[in-house]
């Protein structure tokens, strides 16, 4: 066997590949697909994976410091008991006896693309304004920019010019989003718009795994494997990240950026802290108050249902809801129904199925289905609904954002439930009227008492419409 050359003797020919694959990462040994001699010859620096402190510990991958999320494991290889991190265990177990590795060699020079964007669509005036602002931020390495764009503003297209700008400069880009569905939906669109650029989608169970593309689309958890990797980080749906509950996510997002970087936040429903920063001019931002098709946002109506809980405890649709279904102005629209719990979605489906068949609203029981977060067939069902193979889809809040259907009416059952906060309701309402062929749609909140969230959601939708120049 040939003696592996040490880094001092000059870099082996595959160095480009190594640095492309491993620079900007923080990985466990078993995530580095190199034979031991080759691995040892390369400048991988081990970093202790768990820091022991006096009163707490800290996982060096996910930043976990919670006592209950560390535990001991008797390691058969070391014949010793170690700490391991329970928090990020889905990404591969971090334990004391196995360090994390950082490739400390030269970082990879990503190609500069002269004209990377193959998208030939046009932007509306408002979209163009936002696109220009994003380009400006990227060009000048501005640290932060928040884009407040209503649901259906066409935010992905608004990003293209900024991404192009970054690619022209040989920058590396990550679009992070909270949900795997969104990553999946984004992948073909981005790849199509940047046909000659390497694009990978990373999420739990994704086909792409190694994260070696210039453009990375990822769920936030996948950011845990990156360190100083991205020049441009776009965080989609920033308000949907459980940032306030889970400190490991902002930690990971921060670590994944290079020192000089630009972060773009996208949101239709900013959280309080961002709104305050905007109000006090502490956060550079731009509004996109009009949908790409130029029509206003559908304003939800509310329907008071006295004794709503009675039918709902039997998983029966309330009468006023059935009336609405039958009296909708445009009966050809599909119906998207939001319910508070998985169980409700499941049981209600059975009952609604019987009623709709008896009333001749649907012919085939297969025209109605339900989805929820843990549904293994979620992707498939969403596809079916989009392809109009399903007439009615019951869902938990999992479909509140990120997914687009061309022509739906939207009902929210028990909209007073605590799962429907203001942001959720605005997002849910934003599912209607998405296509220019059918730019309106009905949105009805069925409730047994108006909540602040409902009132505020309606107010903020109206406010956005006013900002967009629509008069009520």
């Amino acid at each position, binding site marked *: 066997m040939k003696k592996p050359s040490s880094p001092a003797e000059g870099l082996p020919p595959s160095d480009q590949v190594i640095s492309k694959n491993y620079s900007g990462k923080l990985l466990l040994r078993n995530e580095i697909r190199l034979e031991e001699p080759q691995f040892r010859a390369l400048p991988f620096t081990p970093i202790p994976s768990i820091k022991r402190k006096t009163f707490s510990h800290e996982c060096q991958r996910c930043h976990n410091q919670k006592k209950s999320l560390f535990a001991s494991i*008797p390691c058969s290889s070391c014949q010793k008991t170690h700490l391991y991190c329970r928090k990020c265990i889905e990404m591969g177990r971090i334990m004391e006896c196995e360090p994390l590795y950082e490739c400390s060699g030269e970082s990879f020079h990503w190609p500069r693309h002269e004209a990377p964007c193959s998208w030939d669509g046009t932007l509306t005036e408002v979209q163009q304004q936002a696109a220009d602002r994003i380009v400006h931020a990227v060009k000048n390495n501005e640290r932060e920019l928040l884009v407040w764009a209503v649901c259906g503003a066409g935010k992905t297209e608004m990003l293209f010019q900024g991404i192009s700008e970054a690619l022209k400069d040989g920058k590396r880009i990550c679009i992070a989003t909270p949900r795997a569905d969104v990553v999946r939906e984004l992948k073909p669109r981005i790849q199509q718009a940047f046909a000659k650029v390497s694009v990978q989608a990373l999420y739990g169970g994704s086909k792409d795994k190694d994260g070696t593309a210039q453009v990375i689309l990822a769920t936030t958890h996948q950011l845990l494997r990156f360190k100083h990797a991205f020049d441009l980080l776009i965080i989609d749906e920033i308000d949907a990240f459980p940032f306030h509950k889970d400190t490991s996510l902002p930690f990971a997002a921060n670590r994944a950026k290079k020192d000089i970087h630009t972060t773009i936040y996208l949101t239709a429903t900013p959280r309080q802290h961002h709104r305050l920063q905007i109000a006090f001019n502490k956060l550079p931002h731009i509004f996109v108050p009009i949908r790409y098709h130029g029509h206003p946002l559908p304003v939800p109506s509310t329907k008071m249902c006295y004794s709503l809980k009675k039918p709902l405890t039997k998983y029966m649709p309330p009468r006023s809801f059935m009336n609405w279904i039958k009296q909708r102005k445009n009966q050809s629209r599909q119906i998207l129904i939001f319910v508070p719990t998985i169980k409700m979605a499941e049981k209600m489906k059975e009952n609604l199925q019987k009623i709709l068949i008896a009333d001749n609203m649907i012919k085939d029981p297969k025209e109605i289905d339900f989805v929820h977060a843990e549904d293994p067939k979620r992707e498939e069902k969403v596809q079916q609904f989009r392809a109009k193979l399903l007439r009615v889809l019951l869902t938990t809040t999992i479909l509140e954002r990120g997914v687009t259907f061309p022509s739906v009416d939207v009902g929210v059952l028990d909209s007073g439930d605590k799962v429907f906060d203001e942001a959720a309701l605005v997002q849910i309402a934003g599912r209607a009227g998405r296509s220019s062929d059918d730019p309106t749609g009905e949105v009805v909140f069925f409730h047994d008492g108006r909540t602040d969230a409902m009132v505020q959601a309606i107010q903020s939708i109206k406010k956005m419409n006013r900002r967009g120049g629509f008069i009520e």
Partner: protein
Amino acid sequence: MNCLWCDEEITSDVTWSNVALPTKAKSLCEGCEKELTVLNGSRCLRCSRVSEEKICKDCKWWEHYMGGEDVLTANYSVFAYNERMQDMIAKWKYRGDYQIGFAFQGRFTQLFKKQFNDIKNIVAVPIPLSKERMNERRFNQAEMLAHFLPIEVDSVLDRVHGEKQSKKNRYQRLSSENPFKLQKAINKPVILVDDIYTTGTTLRHAARLLQQHGCPITYAYTLIRG
């Protein structure tokens, strides 16, 4: 204490009746505890499957196949393999969250005492992992379960073939070479311990090997009936 599954804090309700007694620390919260199904009702005496017959069809097949006497006298399983259990097993075994195993300790010990208490001098023998698996996982879930039991544990089995047998059918699997090797003979009653009874092939391989070397009777105690 936080729930081992959902990490919510477990609030133990202290009442005047139990304040003086040492309360057993709970490892799962009430909600997560409820998601698990403890098997009960009429079951096959040999494999613990929910069954109206005393010996189920599968076990009759085994008996016939082995020439009239099954090497496995009885398997007892504690939990059903429902959705939550599948998730828990995946995290415990495959992701390697060792701590999850303690969520089963209470029931596993309790029902052992109920089922196997009257057998004298019984030795627990965990089903081993292959070397490669052990290197990946760093612990053997069967070993962990065995050590929950109030009896002697003797890990006398080694696995010489890997675990991946799923492509073969049951017959091919049993007639194939025994995947285990015995380090030393045990001439006392043995209770094999594993996380799951699926087809029973693995356990019968182990039982046969032990009995070929002088073990008088072999039981199995498994966490789950698959």
